[in-house]
């Protein structure tokens, strides 16, 4: 660093020179982030409180300020925009609710598997599990559409075991409703039907993901587990073998060692994985855009896709931007909640530093976990 090598008497001059050099070095990043992130975000924020119609610049004089009208139309209006937004929230909430736990558990399981010293061809399995993550999601969506078509491979497989597969991508029935229907509850109990939230009755909120949405859920778990497996693998390898050995000496079974020793040490990684999973699943877009465009019967509509269709297809730019900001708020709030739930609980001071210093993963604050270069250790 040229800045640090200079040694002059006048401290202030050096200080200001250093500051100038510092600004010079970060300038490209500031310009790029500002131009492609900050300015668009601020403009989108303006559009969400404006009546911009989509022609010419939204900053031009003829665009008016409408306050919270766009937000009110989405959250309180009660009309079609509210119903659509409520439906998209419902669909996406079920998607997140199922994808995040399953992908976290599956990727942890895979990581533990390929981390075993005994497993033969570990390199092959690591590559195989990571492979879906490096494939284009559009390509995977198209393959899944073929697999889950009415006479596709999945239904043939089900037919081979004498099960009748549904017409996956055109089945809008909610899974929970189907189960309840099977138990004889096919009409909403009064209070559930009459009350609701964001334009949907509670009964509709409880519908569960539609059969079509289940295809996207399976796909999301399939494509993202590899990436998260890599994160868990890195964290597992950062745990010193001494810790495990000490636990063995204490007489812990392998099951106890996993739950009581390994898992607590993975807490920061679990936080990273669930946070990334939460953000990624709330923003699901490409799969919907290529796969279903929100159908059948709006059962795969998500806020991100609704934001796109409201803006680009219906020309309701203010509403589209407002959806994006509500989505942003939802993600922030849920991440904060999750951070609270996964916080380090108060532990007596002397027990706190029990694990040997070699295990870096036990740091109090959840921080970023080193990710190995995928090319380096396949």
């Amino acid at each position: 660093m040229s800045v640090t090598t200079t040694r002059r008497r006048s401290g202030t001059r050096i200080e200001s020179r250093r500051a100038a050099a510092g600004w010079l070095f970060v300038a490209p990043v500031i310009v790029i982030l500002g131009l492609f992130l900050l300015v668009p975000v601020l403009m989108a924020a303006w559009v969400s409180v404006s009546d911009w119609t989509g022609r010419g610049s939204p900053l031009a004089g003829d665009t008016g300020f409408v306050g919270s009208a766009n937000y009110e139309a989405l959250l309180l209006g009660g009309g079609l925009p509210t119903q659509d937004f409520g439906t998209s929230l419902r669909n996406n909430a079920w998607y997140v609710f199922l994808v995040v736990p399953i992908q976290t558990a599956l990727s942890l399981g895979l990581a533990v598997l390929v981390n075993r010293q005994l497993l033969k061809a570990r390199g092959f399995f690591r590559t195989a599990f990571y492979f879906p993550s490096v494939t284009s999601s559009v390509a995977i969506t198209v393959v899944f559409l073929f697999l889950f078509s009415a006479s596709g491979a999945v239904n043939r497989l089900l037919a081979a075991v004498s099960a009748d597969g549904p017409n996956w991508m055109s089945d809008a029935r909610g899974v929970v409703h189907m189960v309840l229907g099977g138990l004889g509850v096919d009409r909403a109990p009064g209070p559930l039907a009459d009350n609701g939230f964001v334009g949907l009755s509670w009964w509709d909120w409880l519908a569960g993901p539609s059969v079509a949405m289940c295809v996207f859920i399976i796909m999301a778990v399939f494509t993202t587990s590899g990436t998260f497996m890599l994160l868990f693998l890195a964290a597992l390898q950062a745990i010193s073998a001494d810790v495990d050995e000490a636990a063995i000496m204490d007489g812990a079974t392998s099951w106890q060692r996993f739950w009581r020793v390994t898992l607590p040490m993975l807490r920061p990684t679990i936080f990273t994985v669930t946070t990334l999973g939460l953000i990624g699943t709330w923003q699901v877009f490409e799969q919907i855009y290529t796969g279903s465009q929100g159908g059948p019967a709006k059962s795969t509509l998500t806020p991100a896709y609704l934001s796109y269709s409201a803006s680009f297809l219906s020309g309701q730019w203010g509403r589209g931007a407002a959806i994006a900001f509500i989505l942003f708020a939802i993600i922030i709030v849920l991440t904060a909640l999750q951070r609270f739930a996964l916080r380090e609980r108060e532990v007596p001071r002397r027990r706190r530093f029990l694990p040997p210093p070699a295990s870096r993963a036990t740091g109090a604050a959840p921080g970023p976990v080193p990710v190995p270069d995928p090319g380096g250790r396949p």
Partner: protein
Amino acid sequence: MRTARATALTALLTGSALLVAACGGSGFSDDEGGGGAEAPEETSDAGGSLTVLIGSSGDAETDAVTSAVDAWSQESGTDAEVTVASDLPQQLSQGFAAGSPPDVFYVGTDNLAGYAANGSLFAYGDDLENKDDFYPALVENFTYDGEFYCAPKDFSTLALVINTDAWAAAGLTDADIPTDWAGLADVAARLTTPEQVGLTFGPEYQRVGVFMAQAGGGLVDEDGTTAIADSPENVEALTFVQQMLKDGVLAFPSAIDSGWGGEAFGTGRAAMTIEGNWIVGALRNDFPDVKYQVVELPAGPAGQGTLQFTNCWGIAADSQNQQAALELVQHLTATEQQVAFAEAFGVMPSVQSAAEDFRTAFPEMTAFIDSAEFAVGMPTAQGAVDVIGDFNGQIEGLADADVAAVLESVQTNMQSALDAQG
């Protein structure tokens, strides 16, 4: 990392479009004739080239449009380039926001109101030389706020397509071709066998709407300001459709393992379907052995009725060369050019003077063009497309639905869409 990239992508979705808008916006405000509210005055940037953006149905359409535009370029000396859009409404939206839209492009009836309201379209309809030759119902589809915006490109209507082999096998003759609802339900019942259903069509307003038209109903009244979705006529129409569903003589395509009516009809899973003239090309390509006959839809309590679908040639208000664009559109909608398009990819000409040529060239399609007389268009109000989308979702479950409640929700949504338009 995938997730991180997806995060950035989605977060920037609206944002980056707006940035484009911001960059383009400043350039556009320097141009003269920009403001949407000003009286449109043709721009003519002599020698400037034109870009034409189309949403093509396939190679046949792309080639036909390209060669027609090339021919015009040769003749007029103005360069023009045809581009096929992968997502037409999105590409147009970006162009309008950036102030650099294509000069000439397809506009659907559901987008017209939005584009016209924000001043993106150049209203040139009254300048067309062959203005009076277009079918009046089509002109009405492209009239917004009393102004005729753009020239109808072509159009389609719905008619009843009958599998003649199945018809004969059921012992039916020409005398049995249905002329009213009772007749339709009767032949549908007689054509229904364990292997085939009598009638099929997609679960959407774009098909079910024909019965509403035949009953004298619809979604929006004559002057397009009041929703009439919950009228007794519509209840009667949907109840009739629901009855056929319950009797098992009508099935939606997804219930008989098909993607759309044409596929169900071609594979023999249905003996009759209600489709538009595009089915002729589809059957020729995918099911060349199926023998069929196209007849006008039966009349309902209020007489005959069908739906029509159409696109127009939009010209951008921000186009630098509207004069040349208008000449190009004039060329593309001329009678002989429309006949050529009809022959190339089976669309129906939007001008009445081409109807005779069309009947001669396609005797099997006369029922479609004859239906133009009693066809009604889709509602064009801004937001109507969302209402219809919601309605379609409810039609999927029509068999067990409470017809009055369905129409009531459509009434509420449609009225609020119309009110929002003001």
